[in-house]
């Protein structure tokens, strides 16, 4: 059985990943729709900026977050003074780091599935009395559900594995920001920590397997539903 410290790291990892996925889902759907269905000045630029986390080292993202949203950064000071929110060295900060690093993965999956939806179905919905928002919610969204789900799984997996941006932005504080990968790294730094590291490896792999099997099962259900289930 996992020790209390291991349980803490496991639960923290899950909490960070869940909030990172849920927090980025609404903006990802909105931006994916904008990119897939509209053309505006700056379309390519926005697309490029949103893909930066995919191509730069996560440490760079973590450093930028530290500069802007850390205690001394302009964004961090603003949040602290106006809302009393502190992101630096908190698990919320870790969730934001994960969300940003994983965002392009979710965005791409959702955008591709929106592009795969026949716009003529949305037109048909409009002629049947559905407003654009209603047509999106009752026709487009159910049809892209498998893609949205795939994006969530990818981004969840990326969040669980997040290391560089997290350690740079919020450091490795046990119980607050030390997720499984950070705990594993810490154990590997301590002489004689091999046993501890091995246990964490087993926990990580087990978690990954459970997540994978669960997502496969859910994906089958979603596909079934969006193709006109019984």
């Amino acid at each position, binding site marked *: 059985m996992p020790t209390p410290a291991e349980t803490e790291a496991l639960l923290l990892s899950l909490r960070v990943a869940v909030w990172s996925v849920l927090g980025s889902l609404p903006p990802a759907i909105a931006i994916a729709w904008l990119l897939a269905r509209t053309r505006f000045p700056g379309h390519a630029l926005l697309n490029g900026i949103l893909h930066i986390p995919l191509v730069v080292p996560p440490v760079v993202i973590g450093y930028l977050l530290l500069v802007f949203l850390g205690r001394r950064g302009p964004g961090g000071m603003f949040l602290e003074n106006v809302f009393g929110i502190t992101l630096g060295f908190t698990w919320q900060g870790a969730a934001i780091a994960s969300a940003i690093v994983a965002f392009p993965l979710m965005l791409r999956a959702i955008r591709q599935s929106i592009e795969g939806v026949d716009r003529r179905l949305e037109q048909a919905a409009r002629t049947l009395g559905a407003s654009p928002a209603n047509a999106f919610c009752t*026709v487009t969204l159910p049809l892209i559900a498998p893609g949205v789900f795939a994006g969530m799984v990818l981004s969840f997996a990326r969040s669980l594995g997040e290391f560089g941006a997290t350690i740079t932005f919020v450091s490795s504080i046990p119980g607050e920001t030390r997720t499984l990968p950070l705990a594993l790294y810490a154990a590997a730094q301590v002489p004689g920590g091999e046993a501890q590291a091995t246990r964490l490896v087993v926990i990580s792999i087990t978690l990954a397997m459970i997540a994978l099997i669960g997502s496969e099962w859910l994906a089958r259900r979603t596909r079934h539903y*969006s193709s*006109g*289930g019984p």
Partner: protein
Amino acid sequence: MARAPHAALLEWRTVIDVAFSHRQGSFSLDVSMQVPDSGVTGLFGTSGAGKSTVADAIAGLIRPDAGRIAIGETVLFDSARGVAVAPERRRIGYVFQEARLFPHMNVRANLHFGGRRRGAASPDTFEQVVGLLGLEPLLDRRTRHLSGGEAQRVAIGRALLSGPDLLIMDEPLSSLDQQRRDDVLPHLERLAADTGVPTVYITHSIEEIIRLADHLAVMANGTVLACGPIQDVMARPDLPVLNDRRDAGTILLTTVAGHFDDDHLSALRFGEHTLLVPRTERAEGSPLALRILARDVSLALEPPQRSSVMNVLPGTVTGIHPRGDGHVDVSIDSGQIIRARITRRSADDLSLKVGLELYALVKSVAFAERDAFRRHADGEG
């Protein structure tokens, strides 16, 4: 919902007034047409004539560059006043070329989609439409398990159940094979008679026009060349899209006068004339529109003695239209317009001129074509 014979063809109010211009790439449209408030208006033209663009403009799926589109008093689009009603507020039922059913819903949910959003159709209306289109056995099916013809019938039902002021059908049969067409066409014929929803029926098939339409608008190269009651438009000699074909002809509106069972013949009356045609199933007194092909009509200056031609109709030449292929189309007013396609030499031999009184000889077999009989009003079936 019964209509008096031909009444809908003789008296009509404009329900929808369409006049707009629109550019799409290098293709430009300049459309003006009036659709009556009942019956089926065929919108006929070759592919690429701009028919679907007209449908999209009426439904609000495209926004024309300029013009005005109105249903009765309700303005849907008016570029001068900056009016452009959103498609979901237009109450136009649109049946597309492909059924466009929602794949994540079963047939029943598809049918309810429009009604739910426009004040649900009453259960009675639902039952009526389901019955009319024979959808009962399909209700709980998934849409991907439907045949093309079944899917198109569901799409028609879905559009009808959204409570439309106007129904637009854009070549609903063109994606189906002949057998599926024969499966859907009778439903369309009943629809035209039973629902009372004015319909614009877009097609490039003259057969479908003749079976379904009361009014006809003819389009070519982005403009409407002619628009009016079908027998008037079909009688026009100056529309190449109608006349440059082997099966060019005109429409006669008749009433079944009686049957001769022994001879397998029926008598049809129009004006003071009687036509003998192969036995029709329609009851005495019911209206019957039929098409007479120009190539099945010949002309004589005197009524022929001892001839196999049973139908000899006296009339007056109202127009002579030489064609490029050595033939001449002759319009004869015999109460209604009949057209004869004869060789130029025959025309010269007869010294045809406008105002000449002569006899049109119509072979009975001309009526035997499958599409010659059209239910054009409420009747049996």
